């Protein structure tokens, strides 16, 4: 006759109460498991999306870290092919994407609209970042990009152009003069963030170099790593390699660059943390009421056990074990419930509203995230221990004579 066996029998004996409390625990657990899976899925999606945009690492001129450029490519990496080759040698690197970032004015007929331009190496860029998938009309750049440009749908709309139309790009060169080149709209892209859609322009690195009159100079090198690569070690190696090649660069990690990712993550943690805390409080209060009733109903039994020589700690332990056993039973039921709800939600095709700053909602997808299930189990056990402790302590301190006389 172990403590667990005694606890189990008491739970069976107080069947109705056990079912009631087990249901509360089961829903609490399921909420933890499902919310955890949903958050994990959201974080992973956000992380993947962020890395697709900014890469895992970026090599930039050291001066650009503390100071904004006064002129385009003021802190650019010169002889970019040499720098790119030095980085590409690293075994952890899967792609090195040169980028030229610039601003200017796009002119189509009587319309002129400012843009945020990025010059890219189209093939590896399209492959590594999924930029091709953003094209909603026309096509993405190919080869060296030629005179083609991809415009955000908002920018195209403001310029009243469509794929195949011509336009003129104007920008200031590093020496401060104004230059212009003709370009052709290759495709329109929906970059998912409204403000960026209204300004986005991508072109081949050759066209950008011609516009800025700066051949072989790029703003940065965006580095993608292989899946199993160690980000920190790779960063250290790449930094050394570039230094040896004569570049005074800083290697920046994606987390430093993705301010948006950090903010959204904090927002999610805040929201779900608050909801989780409310949930825990509800379970604690319900469980405390149930355990108090159990103690009250069994007062005479407690008196008998104490009279027979059970120490106060033994009574405390008995009710705590009951609380833990109830949590375990509730969690098993909650696991079944969570898996069933997950299957229904994932099959439902419900589209969630777009996250902050985004233009597209995403279909609900609750992942099976073992850590969330483990956290749910721990949270419910801890909750039940806390909820059981005070009634159990009261039971252990009850006067034996009064308990034996309890009706």
């Amino acid at each position: 006759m172990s403590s667990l066996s005694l606890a189990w029998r008491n739970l069976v004996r107080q069947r109705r109460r056990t079912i009631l409390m087990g249901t509360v625990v089961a829903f609490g657990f399921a909420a933890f498991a499902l919310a955890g899976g949903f958050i994990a899925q959201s974080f992973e999606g956000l992380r993947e999306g962020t890395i697709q945009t900014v890469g895992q690492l970026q090599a930039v001129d050291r001066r650009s870290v503390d100071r904004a450029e006064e002129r385009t490519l003021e802190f650019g990496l010169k002889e970019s092919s040499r720098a790119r080759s030095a980085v590409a040698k690293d075994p952890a690197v899967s792609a090195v994407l040169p980028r030229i970032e610039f601003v200017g004015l796009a002119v189509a007929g009587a319309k002129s609209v400012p843009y945020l331009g990025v010059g890219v190496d189209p093939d590896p860029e399209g492959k590594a970042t999924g930029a091709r998938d953003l094209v909603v009309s026309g096509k993405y750049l190919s080869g060296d990009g030629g005179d083609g440009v991809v415009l955000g749908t908002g920018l195209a709309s403001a310029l009243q152009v469509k794929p195949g139309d011509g336009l003129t790009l104007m920008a200031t060169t590093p020496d401060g003069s104004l230059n212009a080149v003709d370009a052709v709209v290759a495709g329109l892209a929906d970059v998912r963030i409204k403000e960026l859609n209204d300004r986005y322009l991508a072109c081949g690195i050759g066209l950008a170099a011609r516009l800025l009159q700066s051949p072989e100079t790029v703003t940065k090198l965006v580095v993608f790593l292989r899946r199993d690569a160690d980000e920190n070690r790779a960063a250290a190696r790449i930094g050394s390699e570039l230094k040896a090649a004569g570049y005074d660069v800083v290697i920046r990690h994606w987390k430093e660059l993705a301010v948006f990712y950090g903010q959204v993550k904090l927002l999610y943690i805040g929201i779900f943390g608050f909801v989780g805390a409310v949930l825990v409080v509800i379970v604690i209060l319900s469980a405390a009421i149930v355990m108090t009733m159990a103690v009250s109903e069994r007062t005479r039994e407690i008196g008998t056990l104490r009279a027979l020589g059970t120490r106060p700690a033994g009574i405390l332990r008995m009710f705590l074990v009951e609380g833990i056993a109830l949590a375990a039973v509730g969690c098993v039921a909650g696991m079944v419930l969570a898996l069933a709800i997950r299957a229904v939600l994932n099959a439902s095709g419900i589209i969630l509203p777009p996250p902050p700053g985004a233009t597209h909602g995403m279909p609900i997808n609750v992942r099976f995230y073992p850590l969330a299930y483990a956290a749910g189990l721990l949270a419910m056990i801890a909750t039940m221990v806390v909820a059981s402790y005070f009634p159990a302590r009261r039971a252990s301190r009850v006067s034996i004579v009064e308990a034996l006389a309890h009706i």
Partner: protein
Amino acid sequence: MGEPQSQGIRRDREPLVEAKGLSRNYRLGASQVAALRGVTLTIAPGEFVALQGPSGSGKTTLLNLLGLLDRPDEGTILIEGREGESLSENARSDLRRDRFGFVFQTFNLIPVLSSEENVAYPMVIAGRAPEERRQRARELLTAVGLGEKLAVRPDLLSGGQRQRVAIARALANRPAIVFADEPTANLDSRTAEEILDLMRKINEESSVAFLFATHDPRVVARARRVVRLHDGLVESDGAAR
């Protein structure tokens, strides 16, 4: 059942339980009610004693104090020479577990445990080995005539059978004394006689002392010594007539 009583620190000539000047007051609303007013009493090993008196005379209060279930407002209780009041709550629990047995008017069996498990419970908290517990519980239940009811839960037993299980449980850890509070009050006449005969037999065979709080004349008739209480005081103390 027939174990010698020479366990623990008890010596044959030393009193088993010695109470000196016990007083106990209860609060009833704004006023204090004196349940005991300076009771002095000694119980020797192997005695079969009835505490007799009308309702409110202090029988149960005295039994609770001597059984270390309650603490006196004044006076001292010595259990085999050890002062009960100086012991910690855990030490008092251990003393009850190892040296005392209790039989209650309402049986007070644990409803989720079988007869055998109820009897084994005091041995579980005493840390005895499972095989020893099983053997002893079966032995005791057989001795009280319930060898066939080992796996039966209390709710399926009659009142007399429940009280027999309670007696077996009281003897589980080979106590020096069994405190019984109105053990026959909830039983019919025939069953009450059987229970009393059983306790008397146990007393004679094993020399376990019995102290009853009762106003049942059948209990008093079987006692060797009767202590009469009135208004919280010992009115008389002597051999049963």
